[in-house]
């Protein structure tokens, strides 16, 4: 397209326009890029400290699986925090669901449905999810309609499940490693399918990008330089390719990771493209204006807590399958990991701001820190200290970059 006789000033001009548009695009998403950068830095540090083992296929695979439980919780927590609420019960709720599910798997289906592992697994999952959603609706009702602050209600939930977990387990661990059930979190997508899914995702991303450009053109909007769009989409595609290449070298994409990817994708869609998402951000941005615009604040908050409860159920099921047991410590502290993931990812405690992809990267950061420190045999005490320092530094860097935009 560039003729050989194109004059030098023109190429210089288009090059500088490209760089300026690129830097504009970067500045718009500076939050996401900053934490991505933080993630990469953390990976590199551990890579060099462990002589490369940190990023070998098996570890990468485990890393992603480990963050998946927190990931489900964080995916729901974003909208909770966006609307100006908090849910402290998610950790132990997930833990309790994992214990119930383990109990069913170990003691119930054994009697009523012998030799039907798949059916048993399906029933366990369904009951786990239903329980999560039901509890979410109870909390949602008290918070939205009875106007009790979410901090208090969900703290109550946390304490409640602390107790209930102990009651159900009677202090013992309950095995949950039956064949049908354990594939949920311990299974892998066959390598070939892994590639197919990866390629499909990349194709979808590019198709989406072109479609968005077409729409803008239809409305006479100025289009961003195509190279900038290609570059940003290309980077995401590259990341996906690297991930699949890496995990396929071990055993393939882990089931729970795929499940999380789908969940995160759905939540992203809901946040950006549905009225439900739009109303959530409006409520967080200005509750009064949202109300006067006809949004039912109570209805929305109720639904958000039901959703959070449901996702806690998902996390609980995955947890039981991953660990293979329902334990008395199941889920302890997970709510803080979920909240930290959201905030690392750019969700504001003041409400109205926050994204799902950011929260996912946040969850990855936290999991990367944990696995890295474990791999280096750092004592648990020091693990906490280091995680704390890194957490605060990461947010500091983010605030610094935002201020100097």
């Amino acid at each position, binding site marked *: 397209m560039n003729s050989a006789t194109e004059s030098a000033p023109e190429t210089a001009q288009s090059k500088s326009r490209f760089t300026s548009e690129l830097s504009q695009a970067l500045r718009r998403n500076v939050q996401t890029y900053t934490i991505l950068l933080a993630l990469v830095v953390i990976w590199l540090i551990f890579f060099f400290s462990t002589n490369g083992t940190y990023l070998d296929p098996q570890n990468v695979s485990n890393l992603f699986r480990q963050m998946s439980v927190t990931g489900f919780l964080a995916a729901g927590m974003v909208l909770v925090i966006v609307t100006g609420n908090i849910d402290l019960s998610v950790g132990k709720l997930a833990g309790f669901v994992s214990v119930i599910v383990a109990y069913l798997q170990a003691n119930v289906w054994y009697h009523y449905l012998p030799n039907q592992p798949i059916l048993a697994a399906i029933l366990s999952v369904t009951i786990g999810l239903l329980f999560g959603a039901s509890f979410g609706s109870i909390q949602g009702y008290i918070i939205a309609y009875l106007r009790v602050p979410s901090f208090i209600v969900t703290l109550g939930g946390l304490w409640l499940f602390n107790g209930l977990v102990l009651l159900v387990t009677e202090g013992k661990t309950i095995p949950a490693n039956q064949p049908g059930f354990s594939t949920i979190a311990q299974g892998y997508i066959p390598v070939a399918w892994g590639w197919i899914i990866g390629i499909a995702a990349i194709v979808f991303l590019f198709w989406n990008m072109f479609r968005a450009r077409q729409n803008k053109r239809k409305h006479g909007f100025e289009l961003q330089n195509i190279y900038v769009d290609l570059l940003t989409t290309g980077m995401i595609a590259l990341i996906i390719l690297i991930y699949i290449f890496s995990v396929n070298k071990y055993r393939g994409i882990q089931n729970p990771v795929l499940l999380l990817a789908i969940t995160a994708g759905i939540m992203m869609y809901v946040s950006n493209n*549905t*009225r439900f998402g*739009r109303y959530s951000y409006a409520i967080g*941005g*200005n509750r*009064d204006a949202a*109300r*006067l615009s*006809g949004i039912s604040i109570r209805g929305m908050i109720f639904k958000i807590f039901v959703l959070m409860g449901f996702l806690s159920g998902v996390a609980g099921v995955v947890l039981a399958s991953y660990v293979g047991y329902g334990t008395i410590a199941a889920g302890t502290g997970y709510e803080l990991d979920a909240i930290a993931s959201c905030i690392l990812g750019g969700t504001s405690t003041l409400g109205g701001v926050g994204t799902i992809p950011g929260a996912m990267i946040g969850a990855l950061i936290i999991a990367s820190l944990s696995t890295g420190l474990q791999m280096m045999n750092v004592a648990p005490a020091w693990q906490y200290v280091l995680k704390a320092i890194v957490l605060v530094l990461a947010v500091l860097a983010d605030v610094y970059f935002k201020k100097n935009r």
Partner: protein
Amino acid sequence: MENDVILEFKDVTKEFPGVVALKEVSFQIRRGEIHGICGENGAGKSTLMKILSGVYPYGTFQGSVIYNGEELMLAQGAIRKASERGIAIVYQELTLVPTMSVGENVFLGREPVEHGVINWEKLYAETREILARYQLNISPDETVKALGVGRMQMVEIAKALSENATVLILDEPTSALSETEVEKLMDILKTLKSYGITCIYITHKLEELFRITDSVTVMRDGKVITTQPTQAFTLEKLVRFMVGREMKERFPKGNRTPGEVVFEVEDLHAVDPNEARRKVLNGVSFNVRSGEILGIAGLMGSGRTELVTTLFGEYGRIVQGKIRLRNKEIMPRSAREAIDAGLSLVPEDRKGMGLVLIQSILKNISLPNLNQFSSFLRIDADAELKASLQQAKSLAIKAPSLEVQTETLSGGNQQKVVISKWLLSNPQVLIMDDPTRGIDVGAKYEIYKLMNDLAEKGVAIIMISSELEEVLGMSDRVMVMSRGRSAATLPIAEADQERVMALATGLTS
């Protein structure tokens, strides 16, 4: 009045990326005078004041500000330094902490401290003294949240004056005040002048300039057009300087014939939702016809805003009375129900109640209307964009794109966003509470024209306003409220300032 200059701006220039906010602004303010500054939105008045008060510190602009003969060099984060030097500013946007008391707000950041502990007696005693000086009927213990917008502004002024200001800057001070309170403010300013305090009075209300100022500086597009003694101006001249063109009338003539009664309120009584014994509406009756503009006048506290927010289902608990829309009885118990019935409300507080400031123009316009372009699973972003673009165009919203945050818009443009969000919902009755508050002459005119257009299309418009001229200039009929009751509804021909005032103050019935 002494002739020495207390404040001088010399070639002050301030640029932001993409826009020159101030261009070589130069003028002088004499000690002890009341100096008015007027100009359209975007003329640069607020920017100039932000330089004076330290929000934009020394080094972020070119040129110099000379205060008392010395160049004023305020450092970064030195907003308090400016007030310590005697330059105090009362903003249009209230900066009070709503959950704190009047006293706590007046002394916020300067609490009298003894041995490391706040001396509450001294704080409240001094607050009482200041309030008494201005005859403000507010108790220093009252929580600011419970005061109306008008009285909150009085607290702001008290706060500024309690810091012994030698230069007091007032940015649109009367936008939320009733006529009596404006009178009070004028008296206060005259008192301050007698003590030698210099006032800078920024306003869109040009008549006020003639009432109180000694000289006026007119700004347009970041430049000073002229600075002259007030007597040298006439209203037409002022407007011409401000706008740069002739403006024949302030209120455009409408071309409409009202039709049938569309909305009717019959003997409405309502109580405070938090305090069942307090009656906020004590018998309100009126009706509006399609294609008509009904103005609602009344003093602060007469219940106008309470009336419309109750009609919208968002405030009072109705204990008696009927509301009819197109002859069908309705009883909205939430904004949603009111909107579904066909009502729209442009609220008094556009930032606090009308907009989600951190979101874009596009998202704000579409918020109550998402049902129009979405199914359960999907918002049709194209339809949304198209509809919002159309609204933005027909209301001439000035912004680089629909994606900018509404926070960055001028007051006039913000108001246009609020109005367009309601127009998109095709209301049968459009209620507007003080729609042109804090908006410059040019943008006001555009909104008046818009109202006329809407009325011509058959929308019934209810307009509350504290500016009597606005009510008289735009309405077909005027309903006057007093103490929670509708005192009378007058056809425009029978309404004049004295009659309306008399009804509003309850002197006649």
